[in-house]
């Protein structure tokens, strides 16, 4: 459940970032496409990293074993 919600959040943030770039620097169709590509690539990279770390912790096979000092 938490996975899909956060994925949705990432998508929303991505869309907002695209809109912001379109509003701030609107320099013609080819430049706009370039900025769009950059934002989408960044969003996908960030999402992928978060998703990997989240999925790895969903059903853990090992658990933290505290060391003696704690």
């Amino acid at each position: 459940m938490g996975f899909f919600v956060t994925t949705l959040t990432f998508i929303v943030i991505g869309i907002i970032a695209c809109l912001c770039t379109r509003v701030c620097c609107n320099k013609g169709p080819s430049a706009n496409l370039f900025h769009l590509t950059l934002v989408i690539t960044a969003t996908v990279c960030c999402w992928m990293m978060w998703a990997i770390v989240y999925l790895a912790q969903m059903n853990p096979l090992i658990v933290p074993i505290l060391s003696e000092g704690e």
Partner: protein
Amino acid sequence: MAEHGGCFPPMDLFRSEPMHLVQVIIPIESARLTVSYLGDIGLIQFKDLNSEKSPFQRTYAGQIKRCAELARKLRFFKDQMSKADIKLSAKSEAKAEFNLDDLEVKLGDLEAELTEINGNNEKLQRSYNELVEYKLVLQKAGEFFKVAQSRAAAQQAEVSSEQAAEESLETPLLKDQESTTVDQGKQVKLGFLTGLVPKGRSMAFERILFRATRGNVFLRQSSVDEAVIDPSSGEKVEKNVFVVFFSGERAKSKILKICEAFGANRYPFAEDLSKQAQMIIEVSRRISELKTTIDAGLLHRANLLETIGQQYEQWSDLVRKEKSIYHTLNMLSIDVTKKCLVAEGWSPVFATQQIQDALKLATIDSKSQVGAIFQVLHTKELPPTYFRTNKFTESFQTIVDAYGVAKYQEANPGVYTVVTFPFLFAVMFGDWGHGICILLACLFLIFKEKKYSSQKLGDIMEMTFGGRYVILLMALFSIYTGLIYNEFFSVPFELFSPSAYACRDDACSEATTIGLIKTRDTYPFGVDPAWHGSRSELPFLNSLKMKMSILIGVAQMNLGIILSFFNALYFRNPVNVWFQFIPQMIFLNGLFGYLSLLIIVKWCTGSKADLYHVMIYMFLSPTDDLGENQLFANQKTVQLVLLLLSLIAVPWMLLPKPFILKAQHNSRHQGQSYTPLEGTEESLQVETAHDSHGHEEFEFSEVFVHQLIHTIEFVLGAVSNTASYLRLWALSLAHSELSTVFYEKVLLLAWGYNNVIILIIGGIVFIFATVGVLLVMETLSAFLHALRLHWVEFQNKFYEGDGYKFAPFSFALLGDEDE
């Protein structure tokens, strides 16, 4: 020339700007001005049409010699100014319309004047130094003589008193003779020489004098306290004043020669006391006179150099510009019959209007009757690659170009490098504390942008400043990955929710043996803070990071293959689509895409399957039952199918393409035994240079071997490149371990002593270690590895990189070349 696959809209920076070969015919009288205006625009790369001629045979060689002469004079001035410590004033914005001839005359005059002043100054200085030495000699030698005279007087008084006392018959006769001899003053006439000898050589001087005259000289030396400036060498040397007494002409000539050999300067000395005093007064007067003259001379020179300094930047710019204009003019071919110059060059298509405007302006300004003619030529030559970058994208494009400049109009990896390069860096760097430090450092650079871009910086500083936007993105992504890895100088925080792990029972009795259990929901953002410091931290993190590296690697390699697909579409190359792109996708995804899928399924289901086992036995014994390694239904069948498809993909990549290329070549050149004659063109003699290679050779064996190498590279590379991405894991592990060591073994240790001094020392050591090892060394290391991953693993899927860069004739770029 460009065969467009026009179904995708154009994207900035994705492919090179369209370029075309242009020809400009310029009348001679407006040639210089035209080239000057074109240099201002900076959008044409001229081709050298006179490449067979040596530099001396070219038309404008004389002009270039003049410019070189002027440049030499300017260098001379700069030298003189730096010796006299005069600063160059900054370039004034006034656009002085200097003519080259005027400048030549002016600079020639200034040079003559400066050399004259310098020569005079040297002469005066020399005389001054000699006079100073002479004064010293007069003073010191005067002392000798005074002392000697007083001693002689004392001795004489003694002897005479002796004589007076002993005037009796008992005194021996000999003694009488002796004293009489002394008294009668039948003294041998001694000559003497005075001068200065360098202190270092004074011992050797004395020795050689002694030996040469067989001991028949009397030398007195006295050292001078401060160093004197030697007249001939102009340096400060420690010297001794010497007086040497000798008898005889032969001794005198020997001593003279020895003085010359030792560089000892001799000065005349009068025995007479009164004359000595006179000389000293005279010399002192002359010294003060000379000093005023020399000072006046130096002042005059300083003024001259000041005036030069004000205009120096302007002049040197002008000379540089003129030289480059004449170099360019030398590249144009001259058409004597039509009294005009022909220029050929590459220029981007979008610049056509600008160039034509500049040509018109030049025609008007040079008051020429005929305008320049501008036309586009058609050629099969490969144009240079030109990307219109701004200050942000320029550094990323430099990174890509360092490996190889993109071939004309192939997909530019720079577009994706802008994001993936800092991202991969951040995966290896992952610490939001360090990320913030780097962010602050590069924000400083960015705020001081204007100031630094006009200054001349050292090598390392220049590289760092040039890459400030790369570092900015690296820092931002590092903060993000630091939050995900949950490391702030290696310390985790519970930022987003309490940790998901808790003790099994209230007493936490089994926390150190069996461990905690997962009671709450998964930690929502990043690695759970409970892991840090636990005994099972490394097995968990290693497994996580290794799998993450594989997933990221497979994603990036797929992106690379997809870019090769876009290239194939753009260049209308269906062979590459069907017989390269598709089998490559099947092979890579059938094996490593499948592995990625298994990883994700294992995470989602929490199964205990051993993925190593699954992958290896997929190859070794694909028909065996999977047993407890089963992750989903029908896995065995799926694996068999994928294995079969991958095996088919290899000959699919290797065999069809060479045969198809051969068939295409045969159908294109059917029945063509001769190369066709050159068609009639309206343009001038330049056409013979183009289309000389219209008839391509087709060696089947060569093409086949090329395809074989490509296939082997891809197949083996699929394994090795995927494994290569494991460096993402390795470096991030190293970073986090180093960070932990510095934190626990330095800072916490210092804190434990409860002593302020130890705490301060510990803090300083911690800061130096963090900055030196983690912020500098690790940054460079992660930068290098991210670079390698891009250059090799990403780009070898699609990038050819054998183009050449567009290098236009531009005055703005001249300044960078010269320095």
